[in-house]
């Protein structure tokens, strides 16, 4: 095994071009487990910790450019307003020690369906900025996950940042685990309301081979909200709409039985989380609307 220590992003890209099998390591919270337990012996380990740029973020007009290695702790502490769904998800990641090291780049690189960031990114809308010596490209999050622990990266590419749309409405994230802390998701659900476009987006974790959106459920809800004039009148979402949304989210799952839970539990739990997060976000939207109206 060789240990590569690029001092700059350019050096890292060059190294990755030269050694496409090199495994990048930043927080180490996935890679080191695999090494410690003899599950993986990469030819090259490439440390990204010396590239300070990866730990920085910029808040722009439309989106936040989040460096791949920004630790979850920093997201929780600093980006709660801009990225509320991701901040909530960050808070559910493992333990304080892990949140101090791990970042979204690792979740994306590993592309495990259980990664906590995925549902939040899918719901918010995001693009993954990847780069190689051949150039930069942005991969829409919907096109990023290509299979179980597989993603759209080319062998010579590295993840540099994620561009996440700034919240224009309430967002929620909810995750089921069989312990109250330090637990891998049995399943997870992210929901974002986008009042500006009058759409909702979802993200489901650990209930299909890849993180997925419940697109049918989104379309149903978009239509139901539009038809009922809910965005304008701010009425409480009728229980039957919430229920159908929840059922459609369950139906979007393609889960398996494993030691963490049964497929049917996952399907069930995603439905419950969908209904609850819809209630929470919608209540929040109505509250904000009332406040705005009151001010006007």
């Amino acid at each position, binding site marked *: *095994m*060789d*240990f590569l*220590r690029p001092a700059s992003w350019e050096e890292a890209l060059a190294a990755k071009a030269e050694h496409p099998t090199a495994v990048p*390591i930043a*927080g*180490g*919270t996935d*890679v*080191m*487990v695999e*090494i*410690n*337990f003899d599950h993986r*012996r990469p030819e090259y*380990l490439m*440390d990204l*910790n010396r590239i300070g740029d990866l730990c920085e973020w910029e808040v722009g007009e439309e989106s936040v450019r989040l460096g791949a290695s920004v630790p979850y702790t920093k997201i929780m502490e600093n980006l709660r307003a801009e990225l509320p769904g991701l901040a909530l998800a960050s808070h559910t990641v*493992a*333990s*304080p*020690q*892990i949140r*101090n*090291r791990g970042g979204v780049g690792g979740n994306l690189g590993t592309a495990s369906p259980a990664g906590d960031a995925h549902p939040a990114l899918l719901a918010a809308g995001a693009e993954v900025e990847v780069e190689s010596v051949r150039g930069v490209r942005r991969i829409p999050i919907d096109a990023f996950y290509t299979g179980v622990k597989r993603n759209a990266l080319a062998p010579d590419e590295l993840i540099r940042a994620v561009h996440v749309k700034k919240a224009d409405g309430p967002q929620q994230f909810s995750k089921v685990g069989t312990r*109250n*802390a*330090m637990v891998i998701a049995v399943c997870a659900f992210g929901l974002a309301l986008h009042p500006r476009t009058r759409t909702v987006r979802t993200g489901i974790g650990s209930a299909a081979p890849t993180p997925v959106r419940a697109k049918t459920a989104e379309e149903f809800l978009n239509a139901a909200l539009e038809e009922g004039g809910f965005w304008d009148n701010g009425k409480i979402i009728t229980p039957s709409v919430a229920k159908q949304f929840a059922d459609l989210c369950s139906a979007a799952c393609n889960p398996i039985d494993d030691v963490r839970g049964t497929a049917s539990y996952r399907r069930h739990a995603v439905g419950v989380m969908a209904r609850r997060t819809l209630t929470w976000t919608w209540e929040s939207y109505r509250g904000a609307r009332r406040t705005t109206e009151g001010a006007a």
Partner: protein
Amino acid sequence: MRVNFTVNGRPQEADDVWEGESLLYVLRERLGLPGSKNACEQGECGSCTVRLDGVPVCSCLVAAGQVEGREVVTVEGLADYAKQRSCASDACGTSLQNAQQWQAKGDSQTGEGTELSPVQQAFIDAGAVQCGFCTPGLLVAADEMLERNPTPTDADIREALSGNLCRCTGYEKIMDAVRLAAARQGEAV
């Protein structure tokens, strides 16, 4: 490979490090600092918690090569670290705190002459140590929390220590210890 970094304020050099080695292994097996513990090596127990450039991390998940040029504090350096912190903030005026530590020592002279940080002393006094394997990691995590949040609620303590498993105590005495350390810190200021 060779790795140079600072541990508990002292420059250290580790040679012939295998590229897959963790910081934990280097501390324990190469630098003679076995205080950080090897309970799970997958970031699920917190026994190996150290501070890396001030931030609590699981040293089992840091590749040795990643600490090149960085600063690490382990449980072995915790007392000094806490002392320097209190010196920096109070111009070394924490006489009450020192006095209490001295008194408390009367009943546990086994480490006679050993100066302890408030949180270390509190763990002994409150009965938070049984087998003690989780203790070093908990101490590093608890000390860092008290640095950030000198007056934590119970829920704050639980959240901050939720990455540190203990199998012996049922955590009650650990809660007592952190409350005690916070209270003593508060009195000392």
